[in-house]
């Protein structure tokens, strides 16, 4: 990771080379990822990377170029490429220029020295202890343990200058027993909140519970209790197909023509929230907008898509601060999906279920079936259980489901107070924070043999 001074020195050279209205981002990441399988570390990587993206405005048109080399010649070449791109682009509709809102940044803690200095060897010792502990339960572990430190900086020719150091820790643990598997995961700004030993125990519990009774069910509609990792999979797709500026502008989002209207149950609220200290806080986006909580669907009412400055102007909406890649095709997206909880407990949800299915996690969700109803499909994995008469009655095979999310979020029976953070595979800034959600009539359509 680079210091604030180093980062702004590179950004200032890039903005100077632009010779026109411009903004730029400079992100530097040092990360270590230890991957394990069969209770053995099989891949272990350390990466030091840095990237500069420069976006220029020429006669109202935008051009973008990026590089991983930062000498003067390369920065000049990058600026030339960006200007060349702008010259051939079309003027942005209604565009009033790059961000000029130099609002104070929210005071959030993004960096932890202990996480920044953790070594691969320290992590290996934690993993080895977990591997050894799995033997008494006849389980082996697979997964990954990531720690990173990064610097994130952006600036523009209107005087916006933002910098934040960032740490991140994330681990996924799968426990594999001969007759079942279980999953547990944690992510945090601080590595000491990612307790590998407890993840191993949680995954082992999921892998070994109800091995005495493995049942099968026929497809059909069931009440379902979704754990946060399952919801996070769904909301990664919700973000792409419904909440981006691009999806709203091109008409594919189910929010189109429905802002201000009720589209889900009153007990459903989802927001972009990078300020919640219990989540994965971050103070600004890469256009330099100070982050704020942005309700996307509030008490069932559609509020706004995420929009960058260009699409906020184009669609005459307020910029939401959701730019994580300058020049990105999404034109605004949520990297901090926050789903409000309710007042139930996990135990109450299970006890109140006559016949239902408890899902730990989904696999390979796809949200492109029919985006106007957010019809999605996917399968369950690493812990799917039948609930009968208020008790966990049996372990189930992995099941396929095909379900409209617009319908599902109108049928939420209860939400837990407890919420958990879930990481995404595509960014270090945020993820999803979600409660457990109980939904009536979820459509299971098949099963793995």
């Amino acid at each position, binding site marked *: 990771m680079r210091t604030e001074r180093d980062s702004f020195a590179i950004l200032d050279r890039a903005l100077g080379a632009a010779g026109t209205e411009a903004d730029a981002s400079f992100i530097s990441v040092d990360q270590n990822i230890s991957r394990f399988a069969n209770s053995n570390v099989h891949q272990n990587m*350390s990466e030091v990377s840095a990237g500069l993206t420069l976006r220029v405005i020429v006669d109202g048109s935008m051009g973008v170029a990026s590089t991983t080399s930062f000498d003067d010649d390369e920065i000049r070449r990058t600026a030339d490429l960006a200007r060349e791109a702008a010259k051939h682009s079309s003027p942005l509709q209604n565009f009033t220029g790059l961000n000029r809102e130099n609002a104070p940044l929210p005071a959030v803690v993004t960096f932890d020295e202990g996480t920044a200095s953790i070594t691969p060897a320290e992590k290996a010792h934690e993993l080895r202890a977990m591997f050894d502990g799995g033997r008494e339960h006849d389980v082996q572990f697979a997964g990954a343990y990531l720690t990173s430190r990064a610097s994130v900086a952006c600036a523009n020719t209107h005087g916006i200058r933002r910098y934040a150091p960032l740490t991140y820790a994330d681990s996924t643990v799968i426990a594999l027993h001969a007759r079942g598997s279980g999953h547990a995961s944690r992510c945090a700004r601080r590595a000491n909140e990612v307790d590998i030993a407890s993840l191993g125990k949680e995954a082992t519990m999921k892998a070994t519970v109800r091995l005495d009774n493995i049942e099968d069910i026929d497809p059909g509609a069931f009440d379902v209790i979704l754990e946060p990792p399952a919801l996070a999979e769904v909301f990664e797709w919700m973000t792409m197909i419904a909440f981006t500026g691009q999806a709203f502008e091109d008409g594919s989002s189910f929010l189109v023509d429905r802002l201000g209207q009720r589209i889900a149950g009153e007990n459903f609220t989802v927001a972009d929230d990078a300020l919640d200290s219990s989540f994965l806080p971050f103070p600004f986006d890469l256009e330099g907008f100070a982050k704020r909580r942005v309700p996307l669907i509030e008490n069932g009412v559609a509020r706004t898509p995420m929009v960058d400055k260009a699409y906020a102007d184009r669609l005459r909406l307020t910029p939401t601060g959701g730019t994580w890649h300058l020049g990105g095709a999404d034109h605004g997206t949520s990297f901090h999906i926050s789903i409000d909880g309710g007042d139930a407990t996990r135990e109450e949800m299970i006890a109140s279920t006559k016949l239902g299915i408890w899902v730990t996690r989904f696999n390979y969700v796809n949200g492109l079936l029919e985006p106007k109803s957010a019809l999605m499909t996917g399968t369950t994995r690493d812990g799917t259980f039948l609930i009968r008469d208020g008790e966990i009655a049996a372990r189930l095979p992995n099941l396929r489901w095909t379900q409209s999310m617009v319908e599902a979020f109108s049928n939420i029976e209860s939400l837990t107070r407890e919420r958990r953070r879930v990481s995404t595979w595509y960014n270090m800034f945020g993820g999803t924070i979600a409660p457990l959600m109980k939904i009536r009539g979820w459509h299971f359509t098949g099963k*793995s043999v």
Partner: protein
Amino acid sequence: MDRSQAADALKLLGSARYADIRYTATHQQHVKVRNGEVDHLSSTVDRAIGVRVLVGNGWGFAASTDTSEASMRDTALRALEVAAASNIASTQQIVLSDVEPYTAAWASQYQIDPWSIPIEKKIEHLMNATEPMRSDARIHQASGEISCYRQEKTFASTLGSFIEQTTTEMGGGIEAVAIEGNEFQRRTYPNPFGGDFQAEGWEFIERLDLAHKGLQVRDEALALLAAPKAPAGRFDLIVGSAQLALQVHESCGHPTELDRAMGLEISLAGGSFLQPDMLGKFRYGSDLVTIVADATVPGALGSFAFDDDGVPAQRFPLIDRGMFVDYLTGRDTAPALGRRSNGTVRAESAARIPIIRMTNINLEPGTTPLADIIAGTKRGVFVETNKSWSIDDVRLNFQFGCEIAYEIVDGKLGRLMKNPLYTGITPEFWRSCDAVADRSSWQIWGLPNCGKGDPMQTMRVAHGAPAARFRNVEMG
């Protein structure tokens, strides 16, 4: 990175059983037009070095975007530190299959350099293709994309190999989005998600003939708005070449990756129902189904001269007349089968660990013309062009959605139908294949976005496929 720089870095790794160093420079340009405007135009250059080292039974890998000589040395030393850490939590013995040292230089072939074509010409080409599509108010979006890709890669290993490879690729396609009321339909040519991709130059974009496809794409998108929904139930299904290519990718390519079968990718991408004790014994498909891995196909995205283990590119069957006969392997996985690597280990760039990746995984053509297969189908559905894809964590239970479907009644293509979905269990599906079309419908499709690994690596692969018929497939 020249040979002496590589040698200097590798010298620091004297305690290693094996080490290699890679350098990549990846150049990309992307142009997208949408509704008469240039919607996106960007250029990127990513440079990286990566050092991989095996010490004892621990792998260490370190990478940097700083490609200076000083950084190469630092990166090599970090790789050693990481390997030492791996040994703390290493519980298994690592055996590498043999490979000879090679000195080689290779480049994919093209006639017209993608970067020699001015941006204006690329924009004009896309405008000519997409503007005629906007002649109906229900077309909410008419767009087109052209992508250029070039990766220069140098590989050196402690075995004495020094290999330089350059791959040049182009991709392009167009799309129409039609909206009427709450109905939303997307139709693309020749494929969604940026079109089709080949390891060729501008001549490939010219061959796509986008300008003469726009009206057909528009008309099909509009027709889908009013089309009936594809039926639910069991039908004889004819899958077109582009969709069958993705079916091969998901239900054959991924499950024949040996690292998946060994559980090495299980936490993220999943495992495989194809286990090593099934090799040579398991009937994966009908006798008509032969699927080969072929990294030697000229002009395809999964082609190269050497993989990132320094193993030469190869062609070999995975499924031979229906029987499961081989996996995609690398040097540190093949010994588990008592075999040598068949050369399928690649990384997205030098900044990532090389892992087993598909090359060109091709369903071999049959002998029956597609028209005869349709004529021989009493009641069925023809589907083409992927819209959605999902498969379980061992690659058994799949569901695919397609952009378009046609009813087949008494051997003839009938009504257009929208939103077709089909689902099945992989070996049951391939065993139900009773007709594979001949080479006239066979085409190799480039997929530049195959995701695997952690951190996620996007790999460029390809699949050749003809159309084929599958009996009694569940739809809806």
